[in-house]
């Protein structure tokens, strides 16, 4: 017989599997044997604490308190744990739910003094003889020396040990809340930074545009009017309040207005060429991401150069991303100088380069910053990539 005898094969396979499982389990338990009880207790406590910390990362909300309470209860070993804010109970974990309303009045003293208080006897106990709750320890939760809530451990037999443990756990929770506060502050700082970064139209540009328009008012009033309208549209776009993002098409329209105004000043000295893949025009990007780069090319590349200067704007499709590059054949600059600009050292010298870089990195992550290729006398090429889709990036919000 050449075929496989299936029952035997299954039997042998099953036995091998069982043996392997047994050996694996044995090894695991033996490996565990090298850990002392203290080690294990330390590990268990720290692990539970880290589980609780995960939920406290966003501050003290009812859901966070509810989720963290479970782990705090297992650390404290009490009958129940409650977390209360001023005037309301955020969560109750454990038995004796009917004591829930007591958590606020019991916490008042702690909220006022910031001290840990042990309650027992009539203040806590209820008529129900089966009820496991006979005492409670209330400890303060504080951030920046301000008591924001209380942590109460409910127990059947109050003890000094539990008081100390509750105090320590409350202190630990307080430090987690301080961390959450820190994270919130950091977010606020980032948002403020983004707001501050947004509308940086260079004052030079406003002055130069108005001067250029003024020069046309008598000789060519129609053109002056057109230019003023362009200027109005440009400022409306650049100073708008709603929305952080725009589409590449919209941004290019604004670059056009900007270049019309610059051409009023430079005349034929400024030549512009565009190579834009129509597929990437709907790409969403932070607004005023392209215009400052074009302005930089015009100002630093061409203004100090003799004769005609070329600026070229290209947008290429890279599949899941788009690449936008602005190139000029101007005087170029030392790579070292650009590096310090991107590091934020020369904030006033270069128009918007560091600003755009910072915003792109903030929105898309560090791998999406500006890339600058330049050398003295060799022109400058500034490019960046934008993913076609990034979570949370929309033109309408």
């Amino acid at each position, binding site marked *: 017989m050449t075929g496989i005898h299936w029952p035997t094969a299954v039997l042998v396979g099953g036995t091998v599997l069982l043996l392997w499982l047994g050996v694996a389990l044995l090894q695991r338990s033996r490996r565990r044997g090298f850990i002392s009880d203290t080690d294990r207790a330390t590990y268990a406590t720290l692990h539970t604490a880290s589980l609780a910390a995960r939920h406290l990362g966003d501050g003290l909300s009812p859901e966070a308190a509810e989720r963290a309470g479970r782990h705090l209860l297992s650390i404290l070993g009490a009958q129940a744990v409650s977390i209360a804010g001023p005037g309301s109970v955020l969560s109750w974990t454990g038995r004796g739910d009917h004591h829930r309303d007591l958590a606020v009045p019991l916490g008042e003293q702690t909220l006022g003094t910031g001290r840990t208080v042990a309650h027992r006897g009539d203040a806590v106990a209820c008529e129900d003889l089966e009820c496991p709750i006979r005492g409670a320890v209330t400890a303060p939760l504080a951030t920046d020396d301000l008591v924001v809530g209380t942590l109460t451990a409910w127990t059947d037999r109050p003890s000094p040990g539990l008081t100390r443990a509750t105090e320590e756990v409350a202190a630990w929770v307080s430090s987690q809340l301080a961390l959450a506060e820190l994270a919130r502050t950091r977010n606020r700082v980032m948002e403020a930074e983004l707001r501050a970064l947004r509308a940086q139209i260079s004052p030079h540009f406003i002055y130069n545009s108005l001067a250029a328009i003024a020069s046309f008012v008598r000789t060519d009033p129609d053109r002056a009017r057109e230019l003023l309208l362009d200027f109005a549209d440009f400022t409306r776009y650049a100073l708008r309040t709603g929305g952080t993002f725009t589409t590449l098409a919209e941004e290019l329209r604004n670059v056009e207005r900007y270049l019309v105004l610059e051409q009023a000043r430079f005349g034929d000295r400024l030549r512009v060429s565009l*190579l834009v893949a129509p*597929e990437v025009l709907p790409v969403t990007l932070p607004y005023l991401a392209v215009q400052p780069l074009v302005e930089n090319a015009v100002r630093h590349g061409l203004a100090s150069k003799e004769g005609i200067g070329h600026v070229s704007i290209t947008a290429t499709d890279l599949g899941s991303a788009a690449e936008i590059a602005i190139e000029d054949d101007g005087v170029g600059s030392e790579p070292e100088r650009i590096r310090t600009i991107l590091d934020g050292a020369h904030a006033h010298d270069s128009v918007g380069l560091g600003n755009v870089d910072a915003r792109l990195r903030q929105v898309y992550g560090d791998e999406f910053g500006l890339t600058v290729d330049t050398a003295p006398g060799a022109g400058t090429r500034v490019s960046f990539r934008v993913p076609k889709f990034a979570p949370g990036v929309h033109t309408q919000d």
Partner: protein
Amino acid sequence: MSSPLSLAAVVAVCLTTLVVGGLGLRLSRRTSDFYVAGRTVSPRLNASAIGGEYLSAASFLGVAGLVYGAGIDMLWLPVGYTLGYLVLLVMVAAPMRRSGAYTLPDFAEARLGSRAVRLVSSVLVVAIGWLYLVPQFQGAGLTLTLVTGAPPWVGGFVVMVVIAAAVGAGGMRSITFVQAVQYWIKLTALAVPAFALLFLWFRAGHPAPVVPPDWHALLSRSGPDDHPVYRTVSVVLALCLGTMGLPHVLVRYYTNPDGVGARRTTVTVIALLGVFYLLPPVYAALGRVVYHELPDGVRSDSIVLRIPGELAGGLGGEVMTAMLAGGAFAAFLSTASGLAMSVTGVIDQEVLRPRFSRLSGGDAPGIRGFRYAAVLAVVLPYLLSRAIEPMGLATTVGLAFAVAAATFAPLIILGVWWPRLSVPGAMTGLLVGGVATVASLGVTMARGDLDGWAGALLANPALWAVPLAITSAVVVSLATPGRIPASTTRILVRLHTPERVALARSRLRD
């Protein structure tokens, strides 16, 4: 049969694709005019591009072959291929565009904010892409064998190499215009010989097509493919709902500037496909005139390519065969490159790029991972196309549609229209639909001899798998109300707010 003209046509099509891919021929001019540079792709051009990418080997050769072989029931196939866009138009085109998603996994992430759902969607995109690539390779093998006598593996191999090179070189990215031209090439390649052949047939005294008795009987075939009503309904459902889940279709919608553009594009696509699908039945009928029954060793998929030789002969016949062979190759290459591009993008983004950047500390040039991904994206389906028995091009494509219909269609429809969809619900829907369809297709491919209800249910799983997936997604969502993403309302408002309203709102804020 070997004809130098046809070979020249095939070589010309392949070389053009390589040139477009290798040189990155963008066909967008350098200009100093912002008005020219800022013009978005018009709905009409984009619709032609979608048509060019969508009409694959199955449409070009497979539909005529199926109608020739199995009778007029198969006319439901082109109807289904087109209906898919109607469903797309009514239910998802505009909201999908407004979501800002570029790929299907992007949509999953934007709507549900879950990395896990994104990952499962990515796996499914790769699976559907591969399944859809298989018949393209088989069709290429078939065509090249017919026109040059080369062994069947050569044609698929040629297409694979051309696609890997063109996609890997990065040239297959912004080629909306090229794909749009492809549609018109395919239409011409199919229409001109069709009218010439019709003329010849008419001049020859318009002999009636000879058909077996149940060929033109509606939904009453018997034999191995029994339960024709179930099979037909299931196939049409798969095609209707599967279109929105095809990775290479959605990507093209990103090119539209807004939701209105997306709708206009879809309407035009329906018109273009409607025109194209008038032609395959003509070939099927002419085939019935020429061959009263299929000669031995001839696959019905090759019927389109054989008719001109039989009906016209001489130089005229050769020219027409060359046109059809070139058009067929254009069909394989455009569809396969679109699919390979999508699959490559997913493999690169989800699998290779994180690995590469970890290995090199973030310094790896992004293009290397992309090239590996491009090779990976085409080699596996090629091997698969050699390993499995050819089942008929349109049938294999139908399998890809069935998987897409049972996985992405529930995700997209519920995601766009149902605010109570939760993360576990969406996940369950994807997994249930995916496992159900892939498993039944696996069984069908492994042993194609099943008949009766088992065979019908497993070969055409859409009719039971789609409701199953939707039901499980709904039930799990209702059971886990806590896991509904917090951003649901905000996202749904964005998906369904017309751009003009959104624009007016943002003006008000100024």
